């Protein structure tokens, strides 16, 4: 029962969703739309559960004085504070003047952007230390990368500005993006779509059930 009922639910729901794409009739589209709403709402609960889980794990680590427990206090406090202020601020919690808005603007937003900007540095060092051109394939990749990088900025245009327009870097860059890159992208998109569809089918028919694994 612990596995059969979920498998049955998944199958019925999944088939109905696929059907609703082809059948506009209300007998199908209304329940399908309702199930979509359900999924959204349950996922929203999932975020809350995720938060609860984070709290539980970190509280454990703190009480056991695991390494770095002092930082975990920072995590727990900031999480609780964000939630408490957010709930106190009410529906317009992101309106100017609210505490949540301040947290968003001064903490969340700058830190998120900075975390990703670190990658600019790592890309440079990886380019130096781990970008090997030893095969034709890697060579093509490198050439395309160099053309695109330089062709997309003013310096590249400046450096080749004296050449005939057809072989200036920005023109070649555009051509690469538009034709060969486009062909490769399409093949990958189509292949990925087939993969997703096959997986979807297996999940709905209960052939693939790895998502149910874990404790019984």
């Amino acid at each position, binding site marked *: 029962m612990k596995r059969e009922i979920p498998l049955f639910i998944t199958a019925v729901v999944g088939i109905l969703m696929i059907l609703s794409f082809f059948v506009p009739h209300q007998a199908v589209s209304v329940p399908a739309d309702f199930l979509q709403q359900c999924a959204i709402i349950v996922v929203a609960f*999932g975020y809350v559960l*995720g938060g609860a889980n*984070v709290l539980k794990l970190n509280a454990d680590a703190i009480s056991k004085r695991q390494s770095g427990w002092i930082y975990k206090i920072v995590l727990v406090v900031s999480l609780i504070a964000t939630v408490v202020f957010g709930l106190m601020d009410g529906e317009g919690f992101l309106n100017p003047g609210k505490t949540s808005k301040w947290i968003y603007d001064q903490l969340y937003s700058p830190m*998120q952007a900075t975390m990703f900007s670190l990658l600019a540095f790592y890309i440079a060092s990886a380019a130096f230390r*781990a970008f090997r051109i030893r095969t034709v394939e*890697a060579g093509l990749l490198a050439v395309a990368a160099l053309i695109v990088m330089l062709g997309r900025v003013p310096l590249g245009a400046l450096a080749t500005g004296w050449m005939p327009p057809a072989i200036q870097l920005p023109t070649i860059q555009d051509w690469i993006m538009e034709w060969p890159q486009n062909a490769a992208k399409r093949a990958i998109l189509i292949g990925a779509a*087939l993969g997703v569809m096959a997986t979807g089918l*297996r999940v709905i028919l209960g052939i693939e059930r790895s998502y149910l694994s874990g404790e019984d």
Partner: protein
Amino acid sequence: MTRLGLRVFARLAVLLATLATLTGLAAVTSAQTPDDSLDVTAPPAANLGPAAPGPPLGLTWKDVPNDAGRALELDWKPSPDDEPGRPVVDRYYLERSLAPAGPWRIVDSTVAGTTTRVDRTVQRNIDYFYRVTAAGPGGLTPALSVTGPCRASSQWVNETRWSALVFTVLFFGFVLYFIHSAQSGQMPFVRRIPGIDAIEEAIGRATEMGRSVLYVPGILDIDDIQTVAGLVILENVARLTAKYQTPITVPVTYPIPFTIAEEMVKSGYLHAGRPEAYDPNSVRFVSPEQFAYTAAVGGIMLREKPAAHIFMGAFYAESLLLAETGFSTGAIQVAGTANVHQLPFFVVACDYTLIGEELYAASAYLSKEPKLVGGLKGADLMKIVIIAAVLVGCVLETMGINGFTRWMQTQ
């Protein structure tokens, strides 16, 4: 990539968040307005001055096809005074009623020159009457006749989606057929995948050097199919390391993949006939937090100096860091991921990279699992169909025949 902050969530949140991120769904209340109330400014009262426009004519209606009876399309002929440059007609008002004699309510308006509107505020299977009124500085002139009864009905098939239906059914048919035939013992042929040879070679070299093998099954939880593929490949890698008597290290991000990875390595050693050689320390739970995990794996690379690094699964921004650190230690590296954005970094820093689908193909090839092989073969056959469709379609287009392309267009 913006969801990276979320990876700190424990298992379930990530499961849900990833799903939500990848697929996305509705949570919008779509309110229907059945009481015909719509906020359109009341038509301006007639005043003295310029002449009222001539009436629009010939209002016709059509049930909008391929829906659940929620819309009617209305077309009319313009007022004789609706001409560009003549300020006699400003706009048209579309009015609706439940009886031919009224009362009328405005449901929509269009600017002059536009003579078609879709009324999406109707309910199905109710008779409505429509009229259209021309409005201008000189006043309002309703059409001379009323159109109706008009009725929106729902359809059972969305006719614009035949092509999607045909291709989907065809593909599903292929997949199920091949799964069935694989299950009944007719294992279809799957070509050898060069990346697999590269793995064996890497393990061989680690053995020669007397160093260990590092296996990274991606950073996502078990709900991601790439993680599943990575764990399937792990079992075969463990079998090889058992055979060669080379230690293996597997750092894992989430609890469930951790337990599965343990099972996989154990069973690999069992299959190789050396269950006693299994080291319970080889599979390690690290942290679901992306960069903490990356730092830990980097530490293993630098301290334990494995001679082979194998990355198989879902990777994000850390691909760059892992591949670079790994490269600097001089280890042989083999990678595989379906996250296209990360492939360039693996391709340049690894000795061999499984590109996209190849990761799944490798897991099917190694596991001989009917469900995986069946999916792979179904996709293969579908690719032939696609290539044929593309070639035929291009020839037809070149000849100026567009019927096929139009059939492929879905809405």
